[in-house]
């Protein structure tokens, strides 16, 4: 089972992000389960959502305590919420930021993890560019698809079309694709 925990703030599409991830995984032939940390949702308040992916029925209903991947939609959460709690040593961290892990003050912390699994993505900028709204959830899914290889960018695009239509869907697909290609290029550059 592969478990993803998404941290963000109300209004950033955290819950929708987890739902789209589950749809993409389903389209890849997996079982998937997405659910929010339930609460009185308010714009700007810290929000957590979860997605489990497996090749068999998912029965577990507890929140994700030991994620294989973390998607952090808002870097201002890094020092107010224990976003890294339970992350496995070989886990992925994807942060929406224009800074590096060093610049975020995570230089020392990040040494505990595999460097090729730590990513930063300018997801808000990509969303503004392609969708016109600062909603970083979709580009981060594109980046996750590239980094993890668990889901294809085509599945991400289909999941976006399941949730949105028309110009908003196409803009989000463009944003996800650019994030996907950027991460792919970075991975190839690191290998070269």
């Amino acid at each position, binding site marked *: 089972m592969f478990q993803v925990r998404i941290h963000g703030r109300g209004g950033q599409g955290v819950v929708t992000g*987890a*739902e789209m991830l*589950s*749809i993409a995984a*389903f*389209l890849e032939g997996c*079982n*998937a*389960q*997405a*659910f*929010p940390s*339930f609460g*009185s949702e308010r714009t700007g308040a810290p929000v957590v959502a979860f997605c489990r992916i497996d090749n068999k029925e*998912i*029965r*577990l*209903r*507890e*929140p994700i*305590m030991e994620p294989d991947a973390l998607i952090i939609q808002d870097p201002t959460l890094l020092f107010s919420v224990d976003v890294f709690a339970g992350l496995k040593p070989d886990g992925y961290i994807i942060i929406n930021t224009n800074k590096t892990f060093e610049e975020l003050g995570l230089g020392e912390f990040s040494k505990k993890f595999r460097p090729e699994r730590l990513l930063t993505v300018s997801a808000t900028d990509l969303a503004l560019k392609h969708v016109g709204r600062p909603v970083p959830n979709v580009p981060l899914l594109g980046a996750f698809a590239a980094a993890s290889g668990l889901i294809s960018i085509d599945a991400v695009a289909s999941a976006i079309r399941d949730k949105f239509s028309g110009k908003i869907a196409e803009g989000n697909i463009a944003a996800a694709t650019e994030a996907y290609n950027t991460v792919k290029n970075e991975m190839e550059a690191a290998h070269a």
Partner: protein
Amino acid sequence: MLKQTEGSHAVAEAVALCRPEVICAYPISPQTHIVEGLGELVKSGELQNCEYTNVESEFAAMSVAIGSSAAGARTYTATASQGLLFMAEAVYNASGLGLPIVMTVANRAIGAPINIWNDHTDTMSQRDCGWIQIFAETNQEAADLHIQAFKLAEELSLPVMVCMDGFILTHAYEQVDMPSQEQVDAFLPPYSPRQSLDPAAPVSIGAMVGPEAFSEVRYLAHAKQMQALDLIPKISAEFKEIFGRDSGGLVRSYLCDDAETIVVALGSVIGTIKDTVDEMRAEGHKIGVLGIHSFRPFPAEAIRKALSKAKHVVVLEKSIAIGVGGVVASNVRLALDGIDSRIYCVVAGLGGRNILRTSLHRVFRQAEAGELEALHFLDLDWDVVNRELERERTQRRSGPIAENILRDVSAVRSSSVG
């Protein structure tokens, strides 16, 4: 067709496939997405010949449901928590009149203190109201149970409450195999009422009944629920024939055959318990889980049979009968009268507290060793409890309990951060 969808939406689609003729809608979390989904299906024309009525309260929702069901229309509504309590008088009327309304309850705690999260207190408060109460383990089962519920309700002329965990199921995206209209039509015949208000053949429904006949009416209500004990497994078997999967029934067991310890539970937590059971089995523990899928009628015989060889029975429930202990556990104790096994009640998940595998491992092992108390509150914070008890011992004007406790909890949090 297999699809990845939200639990509420799967239920809305399943209800629509049952061709309801009247839907009474009033929003309350965590049920709202279901009636919203049905509203969309009516507006788009996918669900036809259905009057979708926005009402002004839950009391109105059930009152309109009573009227439309008495007029012979297949009727659906949904609610949760305080909404169920607010409609309580009409809830009793619906069953007392024998009207086959189907209602989803997206299980949620009851205040005060106000709490929007999941537990089973709402439906448990109505356990003796005369409605049939069936519980879903997954979103697949939630969708399936609604299709079975209309058939069950209409065959017996009794209302059915389909209980599904609020948020944990209603707001979860997972895969659901949505039946086709042809399958549902083959399973569920058009509604043929035992009684209906028809100007062409006038009757009155709702007579005042005095001491001369009230006991007989009440006995028949009980007798009908006893009939449901035979009908529920029959409908579940018919459902399997057409749809090809196990859904519903009275109880379902998992790894119980040789189990010395059996956990009894209702609803979505059964999934987490199954994973815990697998982990404990891998370490050699003889443990299983029995899911109760029909709580009313209470399947005492089926439960007695399933638990008769267990040395330890742990009833894990998301409800508490204050002043007694567990609601489900009290019922299970009655079913096991005379059987020599230890019965433990674990109250868990109240007001949305997470039920974690680590905590389940701990209490199940304690039960196996005979070291669990008869009534145990899972993951209770005794420091917080004792601090409030101390306050009440030492101060007459100790203040509102919920506010005191919230202050204590946030003080602990901020001191551990700083």
